[in-house]
Structure formats: structure tokens, C-alpha cells
């Protein structure tokens, strides 16, 4: 039986507004790391908010450990640990005080709580600063503490909403390793990110979201197969303008599946990047554009997203 079952769940914030999440369905098995990948505004955070019972779904339902988020929110909350995208800590309290407060609010107490706090402090590398107020911490330290709070009490399901946004590489590595260790400990993880590399590194399965919809779902290999082994060619232009026209011209060329211009770069999917490259350079020259840099990438989630949406993931 899956730990999480999501069935046709939708969310509309205002009666006349657009659907932030539109009929999304998926399931997550015990001990799995499942990533929701998508650009900002894709509906990942709203999905997490509904699964964590913070927001009621407009339609559909979801079950966590067999409990409906609609009819049994309290039981759902007992089974989950949530790490929100924004830091949700008390700055005037120390790391130890924060952990104690949030642990008690989860119903932990006594020696079990004290041991758990000590374990989390060691795991986050915050033991030496445990008594210092959080407002004296670096961004990375706060992120790690934010994560530790969500993992108090070893919940069977952990919902991680973009936990590595705006942090240093060292803290990011720390967090990614920690997430992997959760799987080893038998915990189930739902991880949202817009970093393709993180989803590739961590996930057993990946759901790709865009504009509120789940547009693809599968293992990394299954998703890459969707793009018919196309390569991605990225041209960096010296000029700021003119990229859109070049992308339009290239998109019409046979053998090029998608072409997209953004931030002075042209990204295109092609069965063979080597074959597409001379055409792209010729078209750029015809438009008076200078190519400053060329990169060729093997199929990955970026190309999958480009293939599915016609846009780059970073948009």
C-alpha cells in the first residue's frame, strides 16, 4: 500500500481564479524519494500544502498512511514532517530552544525529545552553536536547522519543499546527503525542487509539474526516453537582442524539435546536436548575431522539460 496516494487533487485559491493545481494524481511507495520538479509557480508548494493539510483541496483527495487529508487531517499530521520552503524558525530562540519547542508541539517529550534534539544538532553540525540565537546564524545554518525541525520524531513521511533554495554549496551537499540517509532509514520523502540536478541525484521517481499539472511521471530513465534520446544544444550569444528570432527560425528547421531563447541563450533539442550546430551558426550569422559559447548536453530532465513544455526549466 502506498504511503501517499494523491487522486485528482486540485486547488483554486479564489472562486474565479485559475487552478494552482489541476487534477494531479500520483502515489509514493514506502521508502521512496519522490521528487516534484518544475519551475516556480508550477504548483509544487500548493501540492505540498494540501498534502500537509495546511490547505484544503478544492476537489479530489489525498491519503497519507491511509488517512484522508480532508477527513482525517490530525492523523495525517501525526505521520508527516514538513520542511517549508521559507525558513519557519524563531530567530530570538536558540537552535536547541527551537528544536525543543517544535518537538513538544509534535508531542515529543522527556528523554526521547532530549535525545532526538541532540541527534539532530549533531547531524546538522550545529552542536557547538546550539545555545546561540538563530538570528546569529548564517543562511545555510538556518536552512539546516529548518530541516532538522521538520525531521523531529522521525516521521514516516517527510515533505521537503525546496529545502536548498539560496544556500551555499556546502550546506546543500549536507542536506542532499541527509535526504539520502532518510531513505536508508526507511523514511519516505516527497521532495520538491526546480533544480534538475537535485532531482536527478536524489529521486527514485520524478513527477514533472508545469502550470498546475503533472505533465510527466516516472524514473529518470523513463523520463529521458520521452525525448527520443535528443541532445540539447546551448548557444550563448554576444548580443542581448535577436535571440527570439533566431529561436523561431531554428524551431522550423527539420531535425530540431524545440528551440527556446532566454537570457541571451538559445536552447534547442535535436536528434543530433552536431548536425544542428552548423545550421544554427549559419542562421545566427544571417541575423548578424555572434555566438560566444557552445555547449552540447546529453538528454536529461532539462531536455525532458523542454520537450514537454517547449520552455526551459529555468523560465
Amino acid at each position: 500500500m502506498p504511503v501517499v496516494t494523491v487522486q485528482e487533487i486540485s486547488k483554486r485559491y479564489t472562486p474565479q481564479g485559475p487552478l494552482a493545481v489541476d487534477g494531479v494524481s500520483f502515489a509514493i511507495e514506502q521508502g521512496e524519494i519522490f521528487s516534484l520538479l518544475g519551475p516556480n509557480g508550477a504548483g509544487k508548494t500548493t501540492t505540498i500544502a494540501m498534502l500537509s493539510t495546511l490547505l484544503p483541496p478544492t476537489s479530489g483527495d489525498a491519503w497519507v498512511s491511509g488517512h484522508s487529508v480532508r477527513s482525517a487531517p490530525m492523523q495525517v499530521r501525526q505521520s508527516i514532517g514538513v520542511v517549508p520552503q521559507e525558513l519557519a524558525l524563531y530567530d530570538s530562540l536558540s537552535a536547541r530552544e527551537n528544536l525543543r519547542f517544535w518537538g513538544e508541539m509534535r508531542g515529543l517529550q522527556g528523554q526521547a525529545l532530549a535525545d532526538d534534539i541532540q541527534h539532530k544538532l549533531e547531524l546538522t553540525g550545529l552542536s557547538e552553536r546550539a545555545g546561540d540565537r538563530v538570528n546569529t546564524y548564517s543562511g545555510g545554518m538556518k536552512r539546516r536547522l529548518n530541516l532538522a525541525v521538520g525531521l523531529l520524531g522521525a516521521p514516516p513521511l517527510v515533505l521537503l519543499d525546496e529545502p536548498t533554495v539560496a544556500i551555499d554549496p556546502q550546506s546543500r551537499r549536507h542536506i542532499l546527503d541527509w535526504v539520502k540517509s532518510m531513505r536508508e532509514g526507511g523514511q519516505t520523502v516527497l521532495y520538491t525542487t526546480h533544480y534538475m540536478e537535485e532531482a536527478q541525484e536524489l529521486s527514485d521517481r520524478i513527477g514533472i509539474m508545469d502550470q498546475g499539472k503533472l505533465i510527466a511521471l516516472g524514473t529518470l530513465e523513463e523520463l529521458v526516453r520521452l525525448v527520443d534520446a535528443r541532445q540539447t544544444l546551448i548557444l550563448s550569444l554576444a548580443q542581448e537582442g535577436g535571440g527570439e528570432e533566431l529561436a523561431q527560425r531554428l524551431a522550423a528547421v527539420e531535425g530540431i524539435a524545440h528551440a527556446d531563447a532566454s537570457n541571451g541563450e538559445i536552447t534547442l533539442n535535436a536528434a543530433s546536436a552536431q548536425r544542428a550546430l552548423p545550421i544554427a551558426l549559419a542562421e545566427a550569422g544571417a541575423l548578424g548575431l555572434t555566438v560566444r559559447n557552445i555547449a552540447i548536453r546529453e538528454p536529461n530532465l532539462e531536455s525532458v522539460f523542454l520537450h514537454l513544455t517547449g520552455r526551459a526549466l529555468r523560465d
Partner: protein
Amino acid sequence: MNKLWTLARKEVLLAFRDRGALISMLLTPFLLTLAIGAAFGGGGDQPLRNVPVLLLNRDQGALAAYVVEAFESEQVQGLVLAERVNDEAQARQRMDRDEVAALVILPADFSARLLAAADPQAAADDPTLVEVYASPSWRIGTAVTQAIVAQVLEGMHMGVRGIQAAIGQLAQEAAAPPAQLAALGAALGQTMLEAPPPTRAAITLEIDSAGYRPFRWLDYTAASMAVLFMMFTAMAGGRSLLHEREGGTLPRLLITPNPAPVILLGKMAGVAATGVLQMVILWRATGLLGAYWGATWQAVLVTILALVFCATGLGALIAAWARTTAQAGALGTGITLAGAALSGSFFPRMNLPGWVQTLSLLTPNAWGIEIFSRLQTGQCLVDVAPYLAGTLALALVYYVVATLGFRRQFSA
């Protein structure tokens, strides 16, 4: 219960770790009390002023008019604010509304009974001669009224007895025929009543003021400033709910396995505990300056608890209906300052017009100042019980409206 304690402890910890909040909560009101106490004098007693008294005179006789005139004389001007009335029902309604300290009724046979009495002293002491209805909440004002009535009656019985003695002596000596003696008696009585004030017995009040303490700026300011700044704390506490919502800690709290009402209740309990601690610290600290808050610590503490409960309710109400922290901040500050101005946080409440005093009862400030003023002038817990009940009733209204607002917020 554990969760409530956890939440409340966190609130208190956050409040007392914020240096800015500590300055606002404790240092500022303490310094203001110190400054105002020093400027106006901690021991600078202000005499009782303008005790409102209603006079209902049903007697056409000269002696009743003399009593009325005594209340309006220069000798008691400033001390008593007498008002003649004709409608007893209306006068009693005003008594019920606690607008006046006393109602003095002179019955239709007042003058006749006093003049015809064989023993004027016994007549003057007869409690049915003058009816004085006193308000229990105007303890000192009532004492003033009764003292004036007693003084005037004392003067009258002395005068009547003197005339009776003189006429009796003349009758004994057969110095004049009875008809002339009667006319002489009437003339002497008229002379007594028409005598200019200096020749009348001066009204020297001997007020039964056991337990009464006069107004002192230091006492008044200590309590009024503590109430005002506790209001700021309660408003900030309510506002912190919105701050937590915007900062992400409230959503995180709401997905812990606890019902939303427990989270709100715990947070409000923490705000209330902060307010109580603040007021208790200010009470003890201003006590070191010589400020007097009340005869018993129990009365002061009960008042603090009721008042903080009420103020926290107002803070919750604003938090429940405001959309942003900034909006709640503006509303809370505006309401607190307006309430302070209307309630008499900056000047003696008793000097405010009656309608302002009544209007201000929509704010916790007014109830707080009213109760502490009474405790400071010697009233006890039983005396202020109606005001405590009023405070709690107002709190109930706040919490009901706040609950409606929170339901709307959390069901969205």
C-alpha cells in the same frame, strides 16, 4: 495542556528577549511614572472636586430652601456640584447609572416638622427628615453630602432652639402678649434665614473618611501608564499572530498534530502571561517609588488578571480581522491611543465629561483606570466587583468577535 504551556512559554520568552519590547513594556512606563510623579509630586494631594449631588426639594418652606442654598453656597463651591431636580424617577435613574454621588430629598413637611418639634435636636436627628440616597461607588462623595446635610441641620436646630429659648423666656416674664411673641418668633426665624453668610455657622466638614486615600498623581500615573503600556503589549501580541503567519511559523504550527484553537489559545495565553508579568513588575517597581495601587494585593492581582484578559481579547480581535501586520499595527496603536485619551491615561479620569467617561468604557483602558482609581482611594475588591464584571463582559464580547474573525481566516 502541555501544548498550551509550550506555546505560552515561547511567547513569554520571545517577548522578554526583545530589548525593544522590554523598553516599551517596562522602562518607558516606569520612567513616565517617575517623571510625572516628580513633576506633580508624589504626595501632592488634590482635594476632592465637584461631587455631583441632586437636590429634590418638595418643601415650600424657608428651612428647606436654606438647605438647598447651603449646597449651592460659596463655602462648598468646587467641592460639590449641586443640581436641583423635580422628577424623582429621573433622579433615581441617574443614581442607578452612577452619574451622581447622592440624591438629597427634602420632604414636603421638612420645614414644618423642624419648626414644630418640641425637641429640635431629636427632629434633626430623625433619619426621615431628610432622605439622602448615596451611591456605594461614590464613597467619599457620599460622605461629603452627608456631612453637609448634618452641618446644615445642626445649624438649624441650634437656631430654632435659640429662638424657642428666647421666646420662652419672654413668655415667662410676661414681657409681651402671646400674639406679639408669635410674631417676634417668626421675625427672628426670618432674620436667621436671611443672615449674610459670615454670620451663619460656617460649614466645616467632618467627613467619615476611614480608609479613604486622597488622589495622588503618582498613584494615578503608575496605574494608568501600566495599563496603557500593557495595552501596547496586548496589541503587539495579537499582531505577532499575523507576523507569525507572514513569517511562516504559524503555518508550520498549524500542521503540527494540534487543533487550531489550541494553537490560538496557547498563543493568547502567552500574550496574557506577558501582560500579567509586565503589570506585576510595574506594580512592584512603582511601589518602590511610593505608588499605591490598592489596599490588598489580592484586589490588585485580580484586577490585573481581568484587565489583561480583556486587553488580550482586543488584541486578538484586531489580529482576527486585520489583513496584514502593518494594518493590525496601525489599528492597535490607534485604538490604544484613542482609548488612552478618552479613558484618562494622561489626566485624571474624574475630570472628563460624563459622556466621555461612558464612551471610554468600550476600551479596556477605561475599566482599568476606573478600577485602579477606586482601589487607590480605598475601595476594596467587593466595591470594584461590578467594574471587574464589566471588564470581563467586555472581554467576552472581544473574544466572541475575535473567534468569528479567526473562523473566517482559518476556513479560507
